[in-house]
């Protein structure tokens, strides 16, 4: 299986400038590409696939420079946003397509085998417009895999899937990684999925990499509010929000700890009745599998907390006062600088 490197890749799309982007992905590895809307995630995939000419840099497959290679020669499995199913072909004809192009005589049997594996056999003669969102996703995946790709590019998979179907397709991903050893680059907005499959994260911001490295690094030092929220930090404050805080308040304390893009921390656990340095007024309290999730208003800041008391005890009431602590080591400074996690895998 192949090893791919992206070296200083830059591309332009109308006025949008992407890059330079560096990343590498080896057999069975997954790189998750994150970023807010318009950050350049899809543009990166299109540049990688060869649909956008590289303004600078290159894509290398097993030491071979792919500059000037047409998309069809790059050996890709491609699942774009919207899935790219061919509306005029049946499910089976969609899945068969990549092998049909190569004139393979086993295209039909291999496609039917793949349909069987994905539980799509009963739908073989239907058209994409007659399928549910989850079924359509499965067809797109089956087709991408039947192309026997050297690299799979996924643009927001799982978008239309319910929880059960996601779990089921997670298995397909494991197979890609562990058995077929196919490398993948996945654009996603789904933190649960990204943290469960990705070996490395690339965070794009305005077309430029904000972070590239291991998931641990993203948890340790998120670069900006988007990344922090993606990584699961529920308390994220921009410098402007902290600027209004009164001296001696939680906001003023966070302002001192914060970086140019602000500050973030996960829900602190609170005992009831709480003791702690800060105080807030309860705005909401709702049960979750991890305990009761509470939001309080502490001055101008809304803070998310988690009640650590055993389940079944009384929930705090809205308007009640609650004391809590935020550990300094739990607070992340959002530096905003583009950079690469030093400890990333090679």
């Amino acid at each position: 299986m192949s090893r791919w490197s992206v070296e200083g890749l830059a591309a332009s799309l109308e006025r949008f400038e992407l890059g330079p982007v560096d990343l590498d992905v080896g057999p069975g590895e997954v790189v998750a590409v994150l970023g807010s809307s318009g950050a350049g995630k899809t543009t990166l995939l299109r540049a990688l696939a060869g649909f956008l000419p590289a303004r600078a840099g290159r894509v290398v497959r097993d030491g071979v420079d792919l500059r000037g290679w047409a998309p069809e020669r790059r050996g890709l499995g491609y699942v774009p946003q919207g899935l790219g199913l061919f509306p005029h072909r049946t499910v089976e004809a969609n899945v068969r397509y990549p092998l049909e192009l190569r004139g393979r005589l086993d295209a039909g049997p291999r496609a039917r085998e793949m349909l069987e594996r994905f539980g799509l056999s009963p739908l073989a003669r239907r058209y994409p417009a007659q399928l549910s969102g989850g079924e359509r996703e499965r067809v797109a995946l089956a087709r991408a895999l039947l192309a026997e790709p050297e690299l799979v590019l996924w643009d927001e998979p799982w978008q239309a899937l319910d929880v059960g179907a996601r779990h089921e397709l997670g298995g397909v991903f494991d197979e890609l990684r562990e058995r077929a050893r196919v490398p993948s680059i996945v654009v996603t907005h789904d933190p649960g999925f990204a943290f469960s499959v990705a070996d490395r994260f690339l965070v794009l911001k305005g077309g430029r990499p904000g972070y590239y490295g291991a998931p641990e690094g993203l948890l340790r030092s998120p670069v900006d509010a988007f990344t922090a929220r993606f990584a699961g930090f529920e308390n994220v404050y921009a410098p402007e929000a902290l600027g209004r805080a009164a001296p001696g308040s939680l906001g003023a304390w966070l302002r001192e700890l914060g970086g140019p893009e602000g500050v973030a921390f996960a829900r602190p656990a609170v005992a009831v009745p709480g003791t702690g340095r800060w105080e807030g007024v309860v705005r909401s309290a709702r049960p979750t599998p991890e305990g009761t999730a509470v939001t309080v208003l502490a001055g101008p800041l809304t803070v998310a907390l988690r009640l650590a008391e055993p389940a079944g005890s009384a929930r705090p009431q809205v308007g009640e006062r609650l004391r809590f602590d935020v550990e300094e080591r739990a607070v992340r400074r959002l530096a905003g600088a583009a950079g690469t996690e030093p400890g990333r895998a090679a």
Partner: protein
Amino acid sequence: MSRAGESAAGPHGPRRGPPWVVLQAVLGGSLLALFLLPLYALFTYAPPGAIGAAAHQPAVQAAIYLTLLASGIAVLTAVVLAIPLGYLLARRRFPGRSVVEAVVALPVAVPHLLVGLGLFFLLVPGTPLYRLTTAVGLPVYDTIWGVVLVMVFVSAPYTVLAADLSFRAVDPRVVETARALGAGPATAFLTVSLPVAARGIVAGLLLTWARAVSEIGGILILAYTVYPAGPYNGPVTNTLSVLVYDLFQAGDLKEAAAVSCVFLLIAFGLFLAVRLGERSGWLPWGRGELVP
């Protein structure tokens, strides 16, 4: 306020549908009546049995043959020339694209006698194009090629416009997926873009055919009479439209009505066959579309 899909039994008892649906039916029905009433008049004016008799006349049969052959060639020409132009307009940016779009729409707007005059001056004996068309064996004056030329001029824009709109409606990501999965640009065009756009393009080709068979103005000037055996050689014939015009000019209104009815039945039969073929899935384009 009523909504679509609401129960037929409203608070005021059963009714046929929400008022706006009734309004649509009335307005649409008025237009259909405008289409159908003149045709009804034609069919009632032709004496019973005259339509069948007209269809069996050698002159009418020769006119039908000429008209179908010339319009068929015009449609094939549109397939070869107009679909690529529609694709270019839909998918490529180039300087002067708006000018090209305006030029494409022009033949639809120009009075067709002027089209005939323009072609007449362009191909008048002595001009380079006259010499070229004669040299390659496609002389246009009073030949089927003159009929085809006029038909292509007035009708091909419908295919260009339909192809342009249909290719624009093809999701580029679908085409890119085909490319990434191994299809070269031409293969992706033939296996994805064209089939996905086919239904709209076929609708444009039908309009092209309809416009071609109904053309008269330009044909009157360039090929009023057509010598099937070659220029000014042997018996002559006319297109159906010219034949009806001739009969009308000669005051033979019943015969004109009967030949018109033959013409209408052919056109209606073709349109209906295509629609039924599409609906049943027998014709390949449009497969996979959700038809309510």
